């Protein structure tokens, strides 16, 4: 154990701090996922509306998200906005902003896809029955897409959690940074701490993401 540096994990409050660091990542992802689901529903519905101008705007938005790495967006939001607009955004806020910006696009695309599967006749019947457009979506269309969307939304959570490993780069002290700090503080006593600690972080991410992605696959199969 000593040789692989696993003992370091049990020194002092190291283990607790790693878990605390992990919670920072999970918290950011959960908040971002909730925001993404809400905004994603709206964006998804907007994407099905046939207005050329709206289409172009949303298309550009989707392309930006598709092409720009989240890390670049993080840097632009965290450092760029202060430069340009003088906003002082905290690292957490920047992370949540960027992940929601990204998640909303992903979610929106999923919602659009799900709405497309609903036969057009349902819209027409609903409108003919006197529902207005908003009511049609809220009461008739969205409920039918929920089963299809929930597994995908759950899957988005794991992708969020995985992406949050980037927030270290803008100074958020999350699990990977804590891991580095622990390795650094124990460098002379356990020179192999890098193995044990990084292996443990690897394991932590896996043990969090794996059950969630299994759940998503299970629900997808069951409700398909």
């Amino acid at each position, binding site marked *: 154990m000593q040789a692989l540096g696993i003992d370091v994990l049990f020194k002092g409050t190291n283990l607790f701090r790693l878990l605390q660091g992990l919670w920072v990542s999970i918290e950011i992802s959960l908040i971002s996922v909730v925001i993404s689901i809400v905004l994603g529903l709206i964006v998804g519905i907007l994407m099905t509306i046939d207005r050329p101008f709206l289409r172009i705007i949303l298309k550009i938005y989707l392309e930006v998200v598709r092409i720009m*790495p989240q890390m670049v967006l993080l*840097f632009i939001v965290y450092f760029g906005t202060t430069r340009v607009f003088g906003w002082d955004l905290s690292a957490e806020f920047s992370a949540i902003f960027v992940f929601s910006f990204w998640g909303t696009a992903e979610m929106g695309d999923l919602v659009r896809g799900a709405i497309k599967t609903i036969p057009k006749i349902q819209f027409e019947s609903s409108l003919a029955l006197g529902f207005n457009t908003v009511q049609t979506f809220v009461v008739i269309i969205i409920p039918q897409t929920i089963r299809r969307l929930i597994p995908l939304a759950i899957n988005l959570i794991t992708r969020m959690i995985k992406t949050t490993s980037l927030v*270290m780069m803008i100074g958020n002290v999350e699990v*990977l940074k804590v891991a580095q700090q622990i390795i650094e503080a124990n460098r002379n006593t356990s020179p192999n701490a890098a*193995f044990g600690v990084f292996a443990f972080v690897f394991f932590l991410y896996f043990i969090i993401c794996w059950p969630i992605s299994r759940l998503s696959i299970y629900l997808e199969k069951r409700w398909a």
Partner: protein
Amino acid sequence: MDKDVIISYIPHFKEALFLTLKIGWLGILLSLIIGLVGASLLHFKVKFLQKIVGIYIEIFRNTPLLIQLFFIYFALPKVGIQITAEKCGVLGLGLLGGAYMIETFRSGLEAVTTIQTESALSLGFSKAKTFRYIILPQALSMSIPGLVANIIFLLKETSVFSTISLMDLMFTAKDLIGMYAKTTENLFLLVVFYLIMLIPVSIIGAIVERKVRYAGFGD
């Protein structure tokens, strides 16, 4: 923004672009190989190996590339496995991408109906020939949209290479900001170079997708 600063930084970004592309495409190539082999193993339900592929997919799809790279680059040398940063980048990207490529190819294979296999076999094709000439071409063309998405995803993922000392686009921007503090210019160049790298892929992807859709059946 200062035009002269931007111009003087362009060579750095160009160099970074080449490195990113080199490692990116080698990694993607590796991921395609892993994807094809893995998907075939799953398709033919090869005992034991099928299980390994399953575990591999779960591990690499459920951990971030950043952590995978950290583990390969910083942790493995502690147990005697030494690897250069460039190889680590290719390997990390290949392993991560492989897990996604397998899934993409597999869904392509699954989309080819079993009746085609049966017809081919009854026409006297061998199992191998059926796979090579009947199933694979169709499966590949059906996998194209997924492949394009994966490739863009993997090229974007290269932005975490900075942590293992590879001077990719992201690290170049960060490094220059750290040395000379010209943030706006660097962020501008960063965005421009990512667009230069990814827009062609996106456009070519769209063209290829359009072409192969005609080759698909049952659409």
